[in-house]
């Protein structure tokens, strides 16, 4: 289900940006948290970094480890996201969509053009928030990440509607 989940979550994320102006995308929510644009930028940067880590790890031998439950991965992600500084500056919708498409097609698709999902489940790497994690699970964090911030984006959209 890895690829299906990646596709479903990314489609939902892109759909959630539809209809928003650049101003709305870059508006900071009342709680002072990151804007929708900063979250979308963070997601593409994170996807790019994860794909690069996995591509690198595929070059060396590693052991098979047990699959982790998505809820545990989500908890680890929430912890690590708290330490990330949001990107500075503003972003246009076109720029964000281009970045999200590049990370998805140039980085992630390129990875899947190198290997099979079953191979990803057989290899692992050491990763700070998760410990030793399978490469397949590490890629699962991309869609879980999209889902997590997707909820945050929905909440920000709601707050924008309330304040409008």
């Amino acid at each position, binding site marked *: *289900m*890895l*690829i*299906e989940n*990646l*596709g*479903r*979550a*990314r*489609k939902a*994320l*892109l759909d959630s940006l539809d209809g928003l102006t650049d101003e709305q995308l870059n508006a900071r929510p009342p709680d002072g948290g990151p804007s929708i644009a900063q979250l979308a930028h963070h997601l593409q940067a994170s996807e790019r970094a994860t794909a690069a880590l996995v591509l690198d790890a595929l070059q060396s031998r590693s052991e098979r480890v047990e699959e982790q439950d998505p809820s545990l991965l989500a908890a680890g992600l929430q912890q690590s996201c708290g330490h990330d500084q949001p990107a500075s500056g503003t972003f246009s919708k076109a720029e964000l969509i281009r970045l999200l*498409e*590049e990370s*998805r*097609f*140039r980085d*992630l*698709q*390129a990875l*899947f*053009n*190198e*290997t*099979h*999902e079953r191979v990803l489940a057989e290899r692992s790497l050491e990763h700070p928030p998760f410990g030793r994690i399978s490469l397949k699970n590490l890629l699962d964090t991309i869609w879980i990440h999209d889902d997590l911030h997707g909820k945050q984006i929905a909440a920000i959209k709601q707050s924008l509607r309330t304040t409008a």
Partner: protein
Amino acid sequence: MQTQFTAQLAIKFTAKWQKADKDDRADAIREVVEIFDKYADRVGLRGTYVVQGFQAHTDILFWMFADHFNDIQDLQLEIRRSSLGRYITTPHAFTGITKPFEFSEHPTSFAIGMRPREYLCFYPFIRKPEYYLLPKWERKALIGDHGDIGHEFTPDILTNGVYGFGLGDYEWLLTFETNDLSRLVDCVRKLRESKSRLYMQDEHPFIVGRYFPLEDGLAQYA
């Protein structure tokens, strides 16, 4: 990778379509939109592509995908039985299935969440029998070389390769998606330099079209 069925259905309007009353044409289009709506939870419509100006054999190409083939077939049968069905022929129909490729997963662009592009370029193909008799390492090298050329064109050209073995006359069904026809031309031209071309037996028809939402696409001919 979860397997899904794909379908490329090409339709051509008959001369009777233009003679039909304008309201009847609008009703026929509305009926088809309702059919797709009815199947929306089972059949995804990647796009409706207007082929006018690219190939004379086809007016519109529908590109669909579903977990179960029967849903695709039932939807297509409903179109055939609808009012629009009286005014169309189906010059081409292709069914494929998504599966991991021999040397990598190679998922389709639509499966990994890429949005459709403004243009589609679809073609089915058959490799020469000698290709399948090559040693695995040689096939891998050929595909690798082909992939390296294609990689130059990402993310401008999205790729969607699916299996067609046993489901029709062709072995593979390939769909490129792009916003830039010039890049498409460069990509297809450059791929001619791939050694894997030596093992190409047949690749036709090429069907190229411009993306429209369903109702808008059909309305171009109304």
